[in-house]
């Protein structure tokens, strides 16, 4: 697995491994919901794997990340292990945050997520300010969806980030829908214009090819790390699963058509058969172990009133 202290691998095999890890983790997770082992809901990242894999191939291991409701892919690509995430999702005391947060509210090292759309962006901007003031050399990456372009807190934060030249990279993952709402009903004007208005440079790609994502992210990250202020990376992509569970207005035909853009399928030909099989075996084993181990873990109890 990609570990926190391992130098980030961004060769073809590593990128494939990251994407497959996300894919298999999420598939296993969705299946687990059927067994009643999980409570609540979850938002699978399936279809968007190239974003996380590409972006984190461009970022540094210690960079700070604020993610959202659809955070599993970001966390895994960032280098988080599948076991504590699985345990968290099963509500176990060994989970990332002891079962307190669940799917949308996780924290590990310099990675954070929260389930309130938009409100995470000012927090990320504040983190970026802190990293700059503390001269840590770290930048902050914050992930939002197309729908989150609706939230006012985003624009307040962009203004600050630009005025104060904060080391903040805003990654917009446009999967063309916010829950069931297509972008056409929710996003007026252009996405790039939303950043340009504040003088924030934009890297925009319509692709599910992890190499293209990585290339764009590398430029955007370099801009931010260089101290030139914030940047935005707009990635137009597709989500293949439902928004959370069962909320998908799209037709089977549309979904079928989207499969052509499967980031794993796009990237797979760059690996040999043997490499793919090897990766598949590794990933399967890791996920099996993660879920099996988590399953056996104890439930958390409330010890004290804080």
């Amino acid at each position, binding site marked *: 697995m990609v570990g926190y202290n391992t130098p980030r691998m961004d060769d073809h095999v590593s990128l494939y491994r990251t994407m497959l890890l996300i894919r298999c983790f999420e598939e296993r997770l969705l299946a687990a919901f059927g067994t009643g082992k*999980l*409570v*609540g*809901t979850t938002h699978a990242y399936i279809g968007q794997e190239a974003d996380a894999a590409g972006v984190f191939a461009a970022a540094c291991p210690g960079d700070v990340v604020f993610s959202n409701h659809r955070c599993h892919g970001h966390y895994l690509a960032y280098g988080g292990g599948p076991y504590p995430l699985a345990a*968290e999702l099963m*509500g*176990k005391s060994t*989970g990332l945050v*002891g*079962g*307190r*947060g*669940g*799917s*949308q*509210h996780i924290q590990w090292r310099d990675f954070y997520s*929260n*389930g*309130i*759309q*938009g*409100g995470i962006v000012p927090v990320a901007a504040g983190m970026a300010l802190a990293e700059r003031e503390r001269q840590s050399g770290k930048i902050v990456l914050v992930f939002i969806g197309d*729908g*989150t*372009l*609706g*939230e*006012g807190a985003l624009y307040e934060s962009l203004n600050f980030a630009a005025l104060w030249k904060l080391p903040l990279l805003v990654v917009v993952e446009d999967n063309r829908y*916010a*829950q*069931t*709402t297509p972008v056409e*009903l*929710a*996003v007026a004007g252009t996405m790039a214009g939303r950043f340009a208005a504040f003088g924030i440079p934009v890297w925009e790609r319509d692709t599910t090819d992890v190499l293209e994502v990585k290339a764009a992210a590398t430029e955007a990250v370099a801009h931010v790390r260089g101290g030139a202020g914030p940047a935005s990376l707009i990635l137009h992509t597709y989500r293949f699963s439902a928004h959370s569970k069962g*909320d998908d*207005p799209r037709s089977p035909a549309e979904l079928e058509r989207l499969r052509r853009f499967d980031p794993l399928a796009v990237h797979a030909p760059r690996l040999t058969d043997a490499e793919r099989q090897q990766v598949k075996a590794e990933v399967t084993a890791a996920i099996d172990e993660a879920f099996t181990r988590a399953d056996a873990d104890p*439930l*958390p*109890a*409330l010890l004290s*009133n*804080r």
Partner: protein
Amino acid sequence: MATVLERLNHALHHAMEMDERVYVLGEDILDPYGGAFKVTRGLSTKFPGRVLPTPISEAAIAGIAAGMALRGLRPVAEVMFGDFVTLIADQLVNHAAKFRWMYNDNVRVPLVVRAPMGGRRGYGPTHSQSLEKMFLGIPGLTVVAPNVLGDPAELLQAAIADEEPVLFVEHKLLYPCQWLEPGHSELQDYSISKMGSERYPAFTVSPVFTTTPHLTLACYGYNYELARQAALELTMEREIFCELVVFSQLSPFALDPLLASLSRTRRLLTVEEGSLSLGWGAELVARSIEAQDGLRVRRVAARDLPIANARSLEDAILPQVGAVVRAAVELTG
């Protein structure tokens, strides 16, 4: 028989049909999805021009609704999860709730914001709260919550007909509950009387097997279910008899039905799902004591903690039937 969800949905259909000033707006409310909890299902098909799907912009949704209301429409806005009412706090407190009085009663703001609140579904810290307590006691704002004793449809229609801005709090677990149409109470041996205001009535549920119940259980919304179960257990296993007062109107506080019951029982136990401190129950206790010296009181509510995702933790944080029973025993002990 109908569920609360069906009644609420019916109310919206009916209101839109009867009054073309009624508009519905919110996130993901279009058919076939029909809203995260399906309360708006069917509306966009039937009234396409008056059902407005919005971007994810809670503050603007509330503000736009306030503007519509000021200019003659009757908007019903949905906040997808009640946890996000924090995002409309400014619009409710510093705009909608103030306009009428601040403008010397020159204007009206007939606006309804519907907010699905509550936990017990494993949605975690930001999708499980009962934040209505932040909006109780805000001058100019009415807060209302349906329950299974009154017709949820009537209540929502009353809110839509109200000239004041109304925050309409729907507990998520209430949606599948059956509305207990008159005569269908599952509380046999109890009589139910409608009390208080015509518009947002309270319900007093009195045991018929005694004229001197031992304590008054006050609650609203879904917590009637906890209170009911506790009352049954207390009757069966402890011979402690409860009178229940179930409120529809949470704010402004109008406690006559409660005071009437307390004059009989002299003991008050409040039950709510929001966190304890400065929750709904606090004002009930304060007003009751101000009105009647010497009462004994207890409150059951969530612990003063965020609501965890794991079921084991969530159960320990949110109030349970057992806690109601224990508090009642203490109170009568």
